[in-house]
């Protein structure tokens, strides 16, 4: 068994190495003809882009993706520079007609996205020619290796029960060198995914056949991300099933997040695309889905007829009615740890890191300031977006709606939710985004705290202050500080993962939905001590 586990690790690392090495493979070039077709497709009017691109990428030389990318970006920059110079020139000559004409030649878009689009068509080499084999050597070996590493735990971990032995003695889970390595890997991955998609074009090639099979289209970097997300969650869900096999709550919860990720976040949107409907994740509620009310999204939905309108109405009802009503009955856990994709990754890939979240009072203060700021930010941005949608004015109070949207998308949507939110798992615990950033979590938190039947009940006087609950709370709640006072836990940030209850050695904690009356129960003296309470109160 140990041998299988070790072999699995090696196989996984080989798969991972090939995966990383594959980024550096392949040749990227266009023929004149391909380039002409591409430019015609894109409708570029610039007279010099063709020449520039031709110089850069129509070549017999073997360009790797990095050379290709810099060539492409240079070409676009040169083209735009050329027209910018003309604009400046006509501007100084006050030749407004000529100046105005130049704008149509400028090419918009992010340089690396433009480069990605070209690269996606330009690649040749082992991966594009043997995609199936390459998939097996990367994804395949990764999955097989990971499962070989995980499944023997059924035997190796011994009898069902809490399996936290050695967590703080391991370099992987106690911020040791493996943890830092994972941190660097994840952060790099997200930076590449969001800002340098062209650099990971080889990975995108790997999933092309799958994308074509599901939606009929070639894969984008977002399809790659969605597929990788599902694979990682599935493999790590197997780990959850083994680790918590004594705990039905954990098993069902894991199954639920896995189902919603694969079906709702991955398959349904891609299938919608196949039927020429807008890509939409039916469980992704605003304001987590922050661009739902952006003008382009509303326009697109309205343009796609009845189904688009249905999505529009569903999205609004989901946020305003379904989500809060469900939180009233079940707490925010129904969303955050049973349905949500971000939560799903946190509860599978992130589970080994849950103990690294900070429990200090200071971090709670920071959490409240930051998460509520993001909520305010998203609401202000959305009111700008709606104003723009209804009035067609592209700015409010002198601030461009587009600028605000871009800032949010960059700072919150990419950096916070992705790079920090997931990249920092190994260091700050697995719920960095959910705890400090997610505006939907902030909104659900208000409902949970002030109008909900959900609470974690503390079992009378049974707590021995051992601290397992606090240590393993991914949201950094100092659960013990309530439990040892005999108080129920009704914190807005609790996502109801149920691990505090699972790790408690004395059966002190139970997640439950009950009457609101008595849900919050401040206590002077814990149950079990029969000092005369009335007497105490009277003497005060």
């Amino acid at each position: 068994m140990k041998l299988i586990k070790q072999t699995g690790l090696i196989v996984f690392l080989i798969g991972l190495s090939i995966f990383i090495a594959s980024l550096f493979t392949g040749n990227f070039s266009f023929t004149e003809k391909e380039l002409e077709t591409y430019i015609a497709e894109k409708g570029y009017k610039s007279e010099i882009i063709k020449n520039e691109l031709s110089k850069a990428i129509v070549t017999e030389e073997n360009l790797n993706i990095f050379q290709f990318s810099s060539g492409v970006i240079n070409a676009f920059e040169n083209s735009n520079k050329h027209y910018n110079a003309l604009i400046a020139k006509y501007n100084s000559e006050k030749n407004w007609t000529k100046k105005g004409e130049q704008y149509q030649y400028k090419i918009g878009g992010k340089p690396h996205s433009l480069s990605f689009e070209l690269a996606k068509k330009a690649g040749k080499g082992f991966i594009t020619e043997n995609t199936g084999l390459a998939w097996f050597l990367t994804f395949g070996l990764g999955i097989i290796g990971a499962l070989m590493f995980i499944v023997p735990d059924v035997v190796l971990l011994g009898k069902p029960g809490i399996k936290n032995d050695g967590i703080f003695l391991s370099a992987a889970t106690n911020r040791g060198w493996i943890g830092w390595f994972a941190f660097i890997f994840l952060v790099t991955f997200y930076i590449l995914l969001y800002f340098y998609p062209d650099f990971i074009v080889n990975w995108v090639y790997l999933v092309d056949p799958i994308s074509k099979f599901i939606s009929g289209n070639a894969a984008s970097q977002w399809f790659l991300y969605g597929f990788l997300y599902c694979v990682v969650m599935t493999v790590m869900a197997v780990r959850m099933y083994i680790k918590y096999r004594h705990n039905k709550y954990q098993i069902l919860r894991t199954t639920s997040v896995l189902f919603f990720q694969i079906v709702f976040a991955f398959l349904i949107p891609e299938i919608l695309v196949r039927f020429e409907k807008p890509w939409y994740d039916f469980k992704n509620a605003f304001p987590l889905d922050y661009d739902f009310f952006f003008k382009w999204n509303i326009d697109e939905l309205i343009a796609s007829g009845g189904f688009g309108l249905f999505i529009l109405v569903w999205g609004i009802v989901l946020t305003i009615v379904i989500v809060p009503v469900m939180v009233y009955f079940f707490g925010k856990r129904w969303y955050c740890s049973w349905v949500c994709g971000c939560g799903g990754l946190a509860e599978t890939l992130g589970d080994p890191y849950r103990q690294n979240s900070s429990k200090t009072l200071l971090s709670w203060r920071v959490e409240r300031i930051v998460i509520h700021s993001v909520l305010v930010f998203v609401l202000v941005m959305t009111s700008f977006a709606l104003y723009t949608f209804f009035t067609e004015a592209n700015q409010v109070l002198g601030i461009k709606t587009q600028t605000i949207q871009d800032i949010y998308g960059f700072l919150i949507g990419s950096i916070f939710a992705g790079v920090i939110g997931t990249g920092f798992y190994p260091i700050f615990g697995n719920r960095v985004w959910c705890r400090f950033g997610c505006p939907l979590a902030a909104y659900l938190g208000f409902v949970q705290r002030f109008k909900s039947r959900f609470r974690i009940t503390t079992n009378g006087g049974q707590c021995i202050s051992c601290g397992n609950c606090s240590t393993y709370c991914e949201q950094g709640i100092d659960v013990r500080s309530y439990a040892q006072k005999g108080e129920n836990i009704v914190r807005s940030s609790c996502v109801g993962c149920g691990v505090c209850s699972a790790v408690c050695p004395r059966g002190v904690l139970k997640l439950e939905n009950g009457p609101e009356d008595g849900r919050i129960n401040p206590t002077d003296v814990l149950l079990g001590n029969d000092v005369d309470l009335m007497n105490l109160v009277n003497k005060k």
Partner: protein
Amino acid sequence: MEHIVIIGNGISGVTAARHIRKNSDKKITIISAETKYFFSRTALMYVYMGHMKFEHTQPYENWFWDKNNINLKSGFVSKINTDDKILEFKDTSTLSYDKLIIATGSKPNKFGWPGQDLDGVLGMYHKQDLENLEKFAPNNKVCKRAVIVGGGLIGIELAEMLRSRKIPVTFLVREASFWNGVLPAQESELINKHIAAHHIDLRLSTNLKEIKSDENGKVKSIIIEETGEEIPCNVVGLTAGVTPNIDFLKDSGIETKRGVLVNRFLETNITDVYAIGDCAEQHEAIGQRRNIEAVWYTGRMMGETLAQTICNKKTAYKPGHWFNSAKFLDIEYQTYGWVFSERNKQENEAYFQWQHPKENICITISYDKNSTKFLGINTFGIRMRHEIFDKWLSENQSIEHVLEYLKDANFDPEFYKLYEAEIVAKFNQENNTNIQVKKKSWKRIFSKA
């Protein structure tokens, strides 16, 4: 300002300090020779097992004490001068007090075994024991085998700790079955099997004769009393119970027996000197409780109570219905009310027992044979609701009532399989009754009686 000095920063002393602070602005000083900050002794095991770091065992952040104006002093009190109300420390410094609370807890029992003070012989009680264990048993190469002497809760925890690092463990238990002075046979037997299933070499009805030393004064082996067998080992854990930690009170004039003798108000024979927690011994036992109760909850309750008295609301220590819990490796145990073992139960006490055919799940309900009054329950592998059982005990409910409403008392996580139907069916069959299990009712559960 009145100066309250507390010797000992365990759960009793710290609870007292917190509640005194809640109710007054008296000057408070807590003295400890063990650690600067309060930590949860019960969690030491998890540090060795790697579930936690030591800092996680500290329920309050380090700034808490300053913020609440509670002074922490490290030092070992060697003498108490109760006439002048002065403490003398080992380093000859002194501290005066107006009221003194002794909350020094326990220390592991040693029964005069030859070799009991060798290197590698340790208890599992103090932070220093944890450090010693880390030194003598960091892994199974340094510690090829450990022997644990004494089959109580700390013994099985120590065994679990060592097994988490794959160190072979031999577990010597004096009794014929694990903890059978406390547990009914069904449950004791369940734990015996569970211990064996965790690859612990459990030796029942076995006593330690002596611990042998190597040439460097380190443990080399132990000899078993009954058979004379020699078991080579590198660590010996002595976990045969604890005893109040009060040696420093000799000659202080404070009356002691095994512990510091106190009345119901937790007062000693000397005015303004109190004792709480493991080290306190009641002159007369409270109900069916022991005179000395070395249990987390009772220490906490004494701290809660004494704080009232110190803050001029003189309050007697009145523990309510007995409850406790523990975890034996993977099996959780809870108890509410009194369930005595066969060895200790009274003539009028009868058991109703149910055991799962395959899983490690069982219950024992103790009730009065004559009146069918419910006396107490032990559950293994099922969590129960403290409030409900406390209420039923106060209301003197019958076993029939308890079984009928058993679903209200279940505290297992959601979606767990429930066994009330099987349990009650067995009772009905054995007693020729027809109790119908009532559906769980939130209203009943959360109604304050």
